[in-house]
C-alpha cells in the first residue's frame, strides 16, 4: 500500500546538505498499523511530513529516496498535485488539535472543503457527506456541530473533526503524527479506540507516530524505531517488546517502568542524540551504545534481517535471548 524507500530529507545548501532523515525505509500493508517511535527530535515528524508531501517551503527537502502509494511514485508531489494525478488517498492528522483548525471558519465549511476536493460535489450532497463523516467519528450532535466554530469545541472534539476531515478523501493510508499527545489521558483512550476501529472498518493503513511506547504496545501491528533520523529497528510489536535486537531499542525497553521495577532506580541511556550532520562515519548510536566496538565508529552499520519481518540497523545486534 505504502512503500517508503531510502527516504532522505535534508536542510542547507545543495553543496553541503545536512541530513535530518537518512535512508528511511518501511512498508505499510493494507489495513496495517505501523508505529513509528523515537525520542523528540529524532526526525519522525519530518519523515511523516515528507511522506505526506507537506514539507514547508522553503526549507527541508527530499534529497533522495522514494515514496510509493499503491505503486505510484508521489515523492516530490504536494497533496494537491497528488489529487490531480489521481493518487490523493493519503491523509494526515496532527498533534495540536487546538491550532490545526482555522479559527475563523465553521467546522462544517472546513470538512466540506475536503469533501469537495475528493468527491467533486458541492452544496447539499457535500454537507450531507460532512455530516456522515462526523457521525463516523462518533461526534455528538453532528448537525449542530457543523455550524460551530473551532473554539467552541473541546480538544478531543477538535481531534475528531480533524479525523473526519482526513476521512473525506477515503484514505488508503492515514498518517497520524502524535494525535493524542496533547489530549487528556481519558480522551486519549477514546480517540485511540476510534482510530483503531476506523482502521478495521475501512481497511485503512495507518502510520502512527509517537514517543509513547505504551500506546504503541496497544495499538500497533508492527513498529519501527527511529534514532537520529534513521530507522534502527523494525519488527512486529510483540517481537519488538519481547526480543529487541537493537541496543537502542533495548535501552528504551529498559527505561520503561514496569510492575517489576519496584523501588529500583530506572536505567537511562547516557548522553544525547547527535545533532544532524555531526556524525560523518559509522553508526549514529555509537557514542551512546553500551556494546560499541571499534568498527561501529568507522563503518556504517548494515541493515540485517535477523528473523522473519524483523530488521535491525546494526553490525552487532543483540542475540535472540535479548542479551549480548
Amino acid at each position, binding site marked *: 500500500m505504502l512503500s517508503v524507500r531510502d527516504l532522505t530529507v535534508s*536542510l*542547507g545548501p545543495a553543496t553541503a546538505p*545536512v541530513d535530518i532523515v537518512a535512508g528511511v525505509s518501511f512498508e505499510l500493508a493494507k489495513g496495517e498499523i505501523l508505529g513509528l517511535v523515537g525520542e523528540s527530535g529524532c526526525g519522525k515528524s519530518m519523515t511523516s511530513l515528507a511522506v505526506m508531501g507537506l514539507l514547508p517551503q*522553503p*526549507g527541508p527537502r527530499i534529497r533522495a529516496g522514494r515514496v510509493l502509494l499503491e505503486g505510484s511514485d508521489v515523492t516530490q508531489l504536494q497533496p494537491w498535485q497528488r489529487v490531480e494525478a489521481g493518487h490523493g488517498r493519503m491523509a494526515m492528522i496532527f498533534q495540536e488539535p487546538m491550532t490545526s483548525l482555522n479559527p475563523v471558519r465553521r467546522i462544517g465549511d472546513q470538512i466540506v472543503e475536503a469533501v469537495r476536493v475528493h468527491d467533486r460535489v458541492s452544496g447539499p450532497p457535500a454537507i450531507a457527506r460532512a455530516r456522515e463523516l462526523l457521525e463516523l467519528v462518533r461526534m455528538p450532535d453532528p448537525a449542530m456541530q457543523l455550524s460551530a466554530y473551532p473554539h467552541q469545541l473541546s480538544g478531543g472534539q477538535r481531534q475528531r473533526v480533524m479525523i473526519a476531515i482526513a476521512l473525506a478523501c477515503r484514505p488508503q493510508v492515514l498518517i497520524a503524527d502524535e494525535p493524542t499527545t496533547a489530549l487528556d489521558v481519558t480522551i486519549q483512550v477514546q480517540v485511540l479506540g476510534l482510530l483503531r476501529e476506523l482502521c478495521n472498518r475501512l481497511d485503512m493503513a495507518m502510520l502512527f507516530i509517537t514517543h509513547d511506547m505504551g500506546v504503541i504496545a496497544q495499538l500497533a501491528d508492527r513498529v519501527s524505531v527511529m534514532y537520529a533520523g534513521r530507522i534502527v529497528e523494525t519488527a512486529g510489536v510483540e517481537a519488538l517488546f519481547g526480543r529487541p535486537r537493537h541496543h537502542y531499542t533495548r535501552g528504551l525497553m529498559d527505561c520503561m517502568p514496569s510492575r517489576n521495577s519496584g523501588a529500583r532506580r530506572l536505567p537511562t541511556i547516557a548522553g544525547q542524540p547527535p*545533532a*544532524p*550532520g555531526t556524525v560523518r562515519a559509522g553508526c549514529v548510536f555509537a557514542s551512546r551504545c553500551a556494546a560499541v566496538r571499534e568498527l561501529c565508529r568507522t563503518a556504517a552499520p548494515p541493515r540485517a534481517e535477523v528473523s522473519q519481518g524483523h530488521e535491525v540497523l546494526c553490525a552487532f545486534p543483540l542475540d535472540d535471548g535479548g542479551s549480548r
Partner: protein
Amino acid sequence: MSRDGAIFWLKPFVARPIALLGLGILLGTVLAAIFAPWLAPYDPYAIDPSIRLTPPNALHWFGTDQFGRDTLSRAIQSARMALLIGSGVVVFALATGVPIGVLSALFPRLGHVLMRMVDVLMAFPSLLLALGLIVVLGPSVMNAILAIGLGYTTTTTRIVYGLTLRLRVETYVEASRSMGAGTAWLIGKHILPNLVSPLLVQASFVFAFAQLGAASLDFLGLGAPPEIPSWGNMLAESRTFITRAPWLLFFPGMMIVATAFSLNLVGDALRDRLDPRFRQLFGEKG
C-alpha cells in the same frame, strides 16, 4: 559555535549579499563623517560666486551650489550632522525607553501609570510632536534630537516593556526571585543582557528613521541652523534651483537614502539573526 562570537553575528550578512552592501555603505558613511575634513576635496564653507551652479564635472564631482560651494564637500561634511542626530536620537530613546519599560514591567502598579502616559504620548503623530516641541524649545540641533527622540521613546518603551514582561515570567527569573535576589541584580544579570540583541535591531531602525525625521525638520527650516551643513538643509536650499541645478537635489537626497537604506538592511539582517526560524533554514541546532 559560540553564540556571541563574531561569526554568529556576521552569518546573515554573508548569506545575503545585499546586507553586506548595507554594512559597507554604513561603514563608508561613518568613516566619511569621522574623516570629513581630510576627505572633502574643498572647504565646505568656501564661497566662490564665479563657479556658482556648475554641473558635476572633473573638478567638482557633485557640482556646486548657488554660492559656488562644492556639493561633494558639503555632502561629506553633512555626514557628521547625520551621525550626530542619529546617535543622539538613539541614545535618547534608549536612555528613556529602557528604564521606563523595565520598571513598568517589574512594578505593575507603577507600570500601569507609566504606560498610560506613554499611550498619551503616542496620541501625537511623531512629526507633529517634534514640531510642537521645536516651537516650545526653539529650533536647534539639540532640540531636534530631543523632539525626534521623544517620538521613538514611546516605541522603545513598548518593546522593552513587552520583552521584560516575558522575561519576568521565565522560570529562571522566578526561581532567582524566590531565592531572594534583589531587583537591581535581577535587572542587571537577567533582563538587560537579554534586551541587548532586540534593542540593537531597534536601534538600527530608529537610527534610519531618525535620518528621515531630521531631514524633514531641516527642510522646513526647523532643525539644524542653515549655517551647519546637513543633507536636509542642502535640499531646502536647492529648492529654488531644482530646474536649473537638479544635481543639487540629487546628491544630498541620495545620501539620506543611502544611509537610511543601509541602516534598514543592517537592522533586517540583525533581526534575522535573532529569528529562530533562520537557524532552522540554515541547519543550525536549536
